[in-house]
């Protein structure tokens, strides 16, 4: 019996030992560079391109999550434990402050110093600043513009170019039917095309409570009407986020849900795409990221009659015209705890060559200047030339480490305004109060201004023009 027992112990030890030796970490393997991103065509094309990386000992491994809070949380959780679960990640531009501020991201300036090829000159300066710089204007970079994006506009050309529709519109509103240059025009056109009995609605936009669904859209309206999220010098939120101009903008945004299908107040990008592709929408605001699929007849039955362009602007209460919309896309950041920085820099030197980026840009939007400036890329499809222009008009959330909290608070309050639980003015006032509390808890000193602006854009990087600056559409 005792002999049997001893034999069992020896066998158990042998099995455990064999198991230990079989663990992946104990065997020699090729270098795997793991990246986190949200699942989608851009991540897929990155993986596809990486298969041609000349050093076959290096493998690029995707760790993808659905678009939304889980994507941010996956990166943040790994940083919180100072983990090496991934080597690089594509994170939203506004997350740079959070991850770099926490000391988790590897300095891109360091990469520039260590590389013979990678340098700031390779990228459009605005893109490099937007996707990687923290603090703003410091010249310290924490990400490379790997996937640029901006809020865009799409519309049904067959409706807008229909002579009967054009005549009816002119008779009703007194001016020509054409893709809108202002949100005031967009409202008229949305109202005109809203015909529930025909299953047609004028306007589609995101309004969901998830992640940044509602606020990327509402901010685009708010900035265009001259509003601001806060004053980055004094850290005041009250008086800026709930300024009369900000309220005008968010009211205009909430108002547009009247011209969307019932229930569109909780839509995400998926629902906007689906409704447009089913022919239920005359116009929609949507990220450029999705133009590839919306221009593809295999995905969008209305692709042949879908036109693209930039979002409208607005004439604010000060009479100035502004066109401002949310920047999207991601920078490529490097995990400061990764043990494979050398191999990663070598891969980045290869990946950011024009040949690889041209392949990438055929599907998604690169930040590499050589590709963006090339006529081949600009003429590749009907929307690239609009996208090349879009970055003059983009704006972003707070570039502060507390971004995720500020965002969630604003999302909640804008969602309250959409559902009608609160008026727009009340929702923005509550959001401003909560944002200020968050900033104070994080140690910011809020300096109160003697007077508060009616149109905050006049104080903070003014962009208003006296006349409407029209942009072309396809």
């Amino acid at each position, binding site marked *: 019996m005792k002999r049997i027992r001893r034999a069992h112990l020896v066998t158990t030890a042998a099995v455990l030992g064999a198991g230990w030796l079989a663990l992946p970490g104990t065997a020699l393997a090729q270098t795997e560079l793991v990246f986190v991103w949200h699942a989608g065509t851009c991540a897929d094309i990155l993986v596809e391109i990486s298969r041609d990386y000349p050093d076959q000992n290096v493998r690029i491994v995707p760790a993808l999550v659905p678009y939304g809070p889980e994507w941010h949380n996956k990166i943040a959780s790994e940083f919180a434990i100072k983990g090496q679960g991934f080597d690089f990640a594509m994170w939203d531009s506004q997350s740079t402050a959070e991850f770099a501020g926490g*000391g988790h991201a590897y300095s891109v300036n360091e990469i520039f110093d260590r590389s013979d090829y990678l340098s700031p000159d390779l990228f459009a300066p605005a893109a490099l600043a937007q996707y990687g710089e923290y603090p703003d204007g410091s010249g310290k970079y924490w990400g490379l513009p790997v996937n640029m994006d901006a809020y865009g506009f799409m519309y049904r050309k067959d409706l807008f170019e229909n002579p009967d529709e054009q005549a009816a519109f002119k008779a009703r509103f007194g001016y020509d039917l054409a893709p809108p240059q202002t949100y005031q025009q967009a409202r008229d056109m949305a109202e005109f095309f809203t015909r529930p009995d025909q299953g047609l609605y004028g306007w589609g936009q995101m309004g969901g409570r998830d992640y940044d669904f509602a606020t990327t859209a509402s901010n685009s309206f708010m900035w265009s009407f001259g509003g601001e999220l806060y004053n980055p010098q004094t850290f005041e939120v009250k008086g800026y986020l709930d300024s009369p101009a900000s309220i005008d903008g968010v009211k205009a945004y909430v108002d547009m849900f009247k011209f969307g299908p019932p229930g569109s107040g909780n839509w995400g990008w998926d629902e906007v795409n689906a409704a447009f592709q089913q022919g239920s929408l005359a116009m929609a605001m949507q990220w450029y990221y999705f133009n590839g699929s919306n221009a593809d007849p295999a995905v969008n039955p209305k692709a042949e009659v879908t036109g693209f362009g930039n979002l409208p602007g607005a004439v604010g209460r000060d009479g100035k015209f502004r066109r401002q919309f949310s920047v999207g896309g991601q920078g490529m950041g490097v995990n400061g705890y990764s043990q494979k920085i050398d191999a990663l820099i070598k891969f980045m030197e290869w990946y950011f060559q024009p040949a690889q980026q041209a392949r990438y840009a055929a599907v998604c939007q690169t930040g590499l200047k050589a590709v963006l400036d090339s006529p081949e890329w600009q003429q590749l499809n009907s929307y690239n030339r609009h996208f090349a222009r879009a970055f003059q008009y983009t704006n972003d959330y707070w570039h502060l480490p507390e971004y995720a909290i500020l965002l969630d608070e604003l999302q909640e309050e804008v969602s309250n305004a959409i559902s009608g639980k609160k008026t727009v003015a009340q929702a923005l006032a509550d959001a401003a109060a909560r944002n200020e509390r968050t900033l104070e808890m994080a140690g910011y000193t809020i300096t109160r201004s003697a007077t508060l602006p009616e149109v905050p854009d006049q104080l903070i990087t003014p962009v208003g023009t006296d006349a409407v600056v029209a942009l072309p559409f396809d």
Partner: protein
Amino acid sequence: MARDPGLPPRRLPRELSDRMLCGLFVLPTLGVLLVMVAYPFLSLLYYSTLSFSLLRPGQAPRAMGFGNYTMLLTDPALWERFVFTGKFVVLTVTVQMLLGILIAYFLQRDFRGRDIVFTLFMLPMMLCPIVVGFLWRYMFNSEWGIINVMMAAAGLGKLDWLGIADNALVAVVIADAWMWTPFVILLATAAFRGIPVNIREAARIDGASPAFVFFRVTLPLSAPILAIALLLRLIDAFKQYDLFFAMTGGGPGNETMTVSFELGKIAFRYFYTGLASALAVLMLVIIVGLAMVFVRRLTLAAEER
């Protein structure tokens, strides 16, 4: 006492005694329990007294005492989360228990194809909750979701299921009930079939109606198992996260945000680690308290019988 020099010198035993062997085998489990349960729990208690963020290691933790608990318990928004969670728990568990018992009543009998029907009923429970959430999110889509398409076809018109707070609550209750009623069916069927046939037959011979037999014989005899089903469903519903995450995102506004959702948000979106730890402790107290009350009542009921 001096050792007898005539005795052979003391040596370590060459073979392990049964007691030592048991100890050796239990040791890894004890180790795992200490590492996986005791250490995290004590850490949780400690963290709940600090103000700090795991994501901002540069900022030194600040001792708060019971400050985090005070902040949470005096926050009206959190009380709203508790009230909403309570509403959800009562609604969903009531629906699941009633439906589960009703369906189990029919499934307790033997009929042709019963096993197939029973297996079909069990299927939703086997699915991943987040998948169920997205599935129902699309089915409840106001424009092209199957629910509204069917309602429109029946002349009932379309409902904004997920954009209006009350409708969203009903929608999530439907999804949760679809997924977890099978659990009640499983336990209730087992309980009903476990009752000796002669008891029910005796009642019938005495002239009892089927309703009388069900309410006065079947239900009382199944009560302990049904109470366990109720307890497990209450605890699980209280912790519900996935369905709200997938279907409503906590919205509109914050109107469908459960306490678990709030906890996940504070812990992994805000990374207020100290505050999240305090909320986790509060939830633990509620769940353990609930379980203790139930177990005590069950024990008393068993003793009375």
